[in-house]
């Protein structure tokens, strides 16, 4: 649905985007992840034909952004970093105006305005002035204008920035509900957002592509080995944490067992596997066969934050091994 090849954008002095290539399949939600200044907005502006690239080619919904910008524009909905609202317009008026701009008209437009107002939960403010709306409503009106013409591709620049936690959840919910019919790229510098909303992630840093993969694979890849938290409870007799730990350590594929705590006759441990070994099944059997209760067994997914730091190299500054001087400086900077 979206193909980007060797995309480069140079502003007067800064190289904002540096030879980025990626692909987005139809119906996917892709997170475009990177710290501030990474070049996310710039890339999105190129994909929406707002800015011309310095170099490289991008194809959106089957059309080249430089060759056929009008065709591309018909097929995208775009929510810029600040929602493009006219303060002197009422919500319904505004959505009608945007709908007309996108080529809709008449009763189908009126119906669609009602529909997206319901969907984005802004129907209750439809005759309010945009200038008088709260941040949460402004953002949702921004989303509503992006989907008004039901475009196959949605490009959302930091759709949850500046919202409170409840609004963030509602917005994510809304975005997830749009997947399937729409191909969505959303940018963010908040990691959990990608974990919760997206299927695929594209990580960029300082204009360069760092990684692109499914969220699931990326977590696995960075993790390499499996890591689980296990909680064991003594059934009849008191539980001896040492015994349990020894038992767990003898399970095949386990590389390390770290005791965490004992509470009310329950002990919890963090267990790491050897590279590429799956240990959860064996752990569970070992616990049950030893006559203990298995209270909890869950994988500790490495957060994208750790992955991100690992991939962008910012972590080196805090790593145990003495880092080169240069890396320290970089780590502080970013």
């Amino acid at each position, binding site marked *: 649905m979206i193909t980007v090849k060797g995309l480069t954008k140079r502003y007067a002095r800064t190289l904002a985007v540096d030879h980025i290539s990626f692909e987005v399949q139809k119906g996917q939600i892709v997170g475009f992840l990177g710290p501030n200044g990474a070049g996310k907005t710039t890339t999105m502006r190129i994909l929406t034909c*707002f800015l*011309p690239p310095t170099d490289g080619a991008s194809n959106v919904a089957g059309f080249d952004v430089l060759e056929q910008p009008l065709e591309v*524009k018909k097929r995208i909905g775009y929510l810029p970093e600040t929602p493009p609202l006219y303060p*002197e317009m009422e919500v319904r008026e505004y959505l009608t105006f945007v709908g007309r*701009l*996108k080529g809709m008209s008449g009763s189908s437009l009126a119906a669609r305005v009602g529909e997206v107002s319901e969907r984005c939960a802004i129907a209750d403010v439809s005759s309010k002035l945009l200038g008088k709306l709260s941040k949460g409503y402004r953002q949702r009106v921004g989303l509503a204008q992006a989907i008004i013409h039901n475009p196959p591709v949605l490009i959302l620049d930091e759709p949850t920035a500046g919202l409170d936690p409840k609004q963030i959840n509602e917005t994510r919910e809304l975005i997830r509900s749009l997947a399937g019919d729409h191909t969505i790229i959303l940018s963010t510098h908040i990691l959990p957002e990608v974990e919760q909303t997206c299927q695929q992630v594209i990580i960029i840093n300082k204009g360069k592509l760092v990684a692109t993969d499914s969220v699931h694979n990326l977590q696995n890849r960075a993790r390499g080995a499996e890591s689980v938290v296990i909680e064991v409870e003594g059934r009849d007799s008191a539980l001896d944490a040492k015994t349990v730990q020894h038992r767990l350590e003898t399970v095949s594929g386990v590389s390390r067992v770290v005791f965490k705590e004992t509470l009310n006759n329950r002990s919890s441990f963090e267990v790491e596997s050897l590279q590429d070994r799956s240990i959860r099944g064996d752990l569970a059997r070992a616990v049950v066969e030893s006559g203990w209760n298995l209270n909890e067994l869950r994988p500790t997914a490495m957060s994208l934050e750790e992955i991100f730091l690992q991939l962008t190299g910012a972590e080196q500054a805090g790593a145990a091994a003495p880092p080169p001087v240069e890396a320290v400086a970089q780590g502080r900077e970013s």
Partner: protein
Amino acid sequence: MRNIWIICRKELHSYFVSPVAYLLLTMFALIFGFFYWNSVGYFNQVGLESQMRGQAFPMSVNEYVIRPLLSNVSVIGLFFIPMITMRLFAEEKRMGTIELLATSPVRDLEVIIGKWLAAVILYATMMLFTAINFAFLFRYGNPDWKPLAIGYLGLLLQAGGLLAIGTFISTLTRNQIIAGAATFGVCLMLWVLEWVAGYETATWAKVLAYMSVITHFDSFSKGVLDTKDAIFYASVIFLGLFLTSRSMESLRWRS
């Protein structure tokens, strides 16, 4: 065509929901009313005096009321142009709404012409207020309507050119006050250029005077439709809109 109208309507809407349009219309009506009653009063007094001296009434309403009034309007208009055009693009840039326009399936030129057309319509509405005053002349006097119509055509053409220049200047900044001040400066320049012809007859002075928008209005105010002057105004309109479209394009390449 459809897109031009969509943009134009949106601009008119924002003129008329904010106090801007009403403020401009009221101020213009007051200033024009002042000039109007002054000249009508003067006309009556002169007419009365000549009657008392037993002379025939030799003056025509067209020559003594309408013509100077139209010239006045064309100068007063210069002061209103910046206030009409200053927000057209500057405000879109400041609010970020330019991103909506630029990523919608409409051409730059449609956006530009739509905005310019809205400005022209607002200006024409101001002119309508003057026309109401002139209607009284038809009620009580006996002026010729053709020169008046040509005068109005001239006013619209002249304003069209200046509004196009103002639209262009509005694309250069995101601050509408700066856009307004710069447009005012340019309008003033284009007006006073005419003065050099008063004391200098060299070619350069003639060229400068030619560029003054006011000199080209003379023929219109006399009720004469001079194609040379009409073409001059049309060229200014074209140039202004052309510069606007270049500016919008380079905006993208630069930013």
